[in-house]
């Protein structure tokens, strides 16, 4: 009987340790929680083009086509790091629709950024007040979303995309 008294707390402690270890080894970063919108419909949005305010893009415009949505800004240094990769994607997957959302950026700065570094996007929407980012659950730039033909978010990445992420995580979904 005494053995049970000694062993029970140890067993409970062991179970807690195993749970903690499994979580730590799962590679989950607590600072990068999974998106609440993953496998859900793309949020409803409407945005005007950076280059022509009359040119509007809406949620329904990206239906039936695989879309890569990227939130970026000229003031965001990590965005500059990943920027060249979008040209690679553009070249390798010409059928993929690239939609950039310029987040809380003065229009002139955004235009200058895309003129200097190049514009890989099919459409650059303006998100000056950050409300589109809010609908997507963005909390830091850059963030990238992959939307399938059914209009569902099938992938989300927080931070700058690297070649490894592109090859191992995004390309298998394209």
């Amino acid at each position, binding site marked *: *009987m005494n053995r049970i008294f000694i062993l029970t707390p140890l067993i*409970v402690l062991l179970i807690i340790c195993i749970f903690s270890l499994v979580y730590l080894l799962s590679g989950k970063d607590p600072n990068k929680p999974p998106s609440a919108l993953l496998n859900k419909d793309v949020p409803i949005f409407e945005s005007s083009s950076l280059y022509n305010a009359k040119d509007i893009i809406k949620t329904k415009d990206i239906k039936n086509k695989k879309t890569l949505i990227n939130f970026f800004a000229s003031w965001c240094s990590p965005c500059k790091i990943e920027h060249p990769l979008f040209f690679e994607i553009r070249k390798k997957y010409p059928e993929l629709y690239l939609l950039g959302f310029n987040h809380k950026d003065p229009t002139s700065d955004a235009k200058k950024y895309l003129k200097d570094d190049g514009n890989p996007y099919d459409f650059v929407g303006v998100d000056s007040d950050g409300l589109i980012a809010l609908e997507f659950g963005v909390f830091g730039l850059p963030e990238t979303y992959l939307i399938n033909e059914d209009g569902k978010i099938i992938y989300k990445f927080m931070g700058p995309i690297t070649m490894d992420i592109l090859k191992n995580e995004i390309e298998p979904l394209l």
Partner: protein
Amino acid sequence: MKLSHFYKFLHIIILSFVFFTFKIFAVENIDERVKKLTLELRCMTCQNQSIYDSDAEFSNDIKKIVKNKLKAGESERDIKKFLVERYGEYILFRPLMNYNNIFLWSFPFILLIIGLFFVLIKSKGNKV
């Protein structure tokens, strides 16, 4: 005649006072509610800080949204639901009471029951 003018004036003064008092009270009340709610929300871009305590851009945006929604008459529950739908449960410091979190909420009580059970058995054993 003069007295009636005085009463009218007094009436206006009192009504204005009441109106502005209510107005100030309403603003303070909203601010208090914003504080209460944002203290329960996690700043996603900070290290273990509430949205209320943080000055990060993300937190300031959420504070604005919470304030606007409270002003629009939305309940705290609706606002939390709105945020959880977009940012996940991670944005809440206190996990939701739902089926997914049942183990999390019930585990301390399970431990307590196991502990009490052993204490009971031990005390009975000591009596014998």
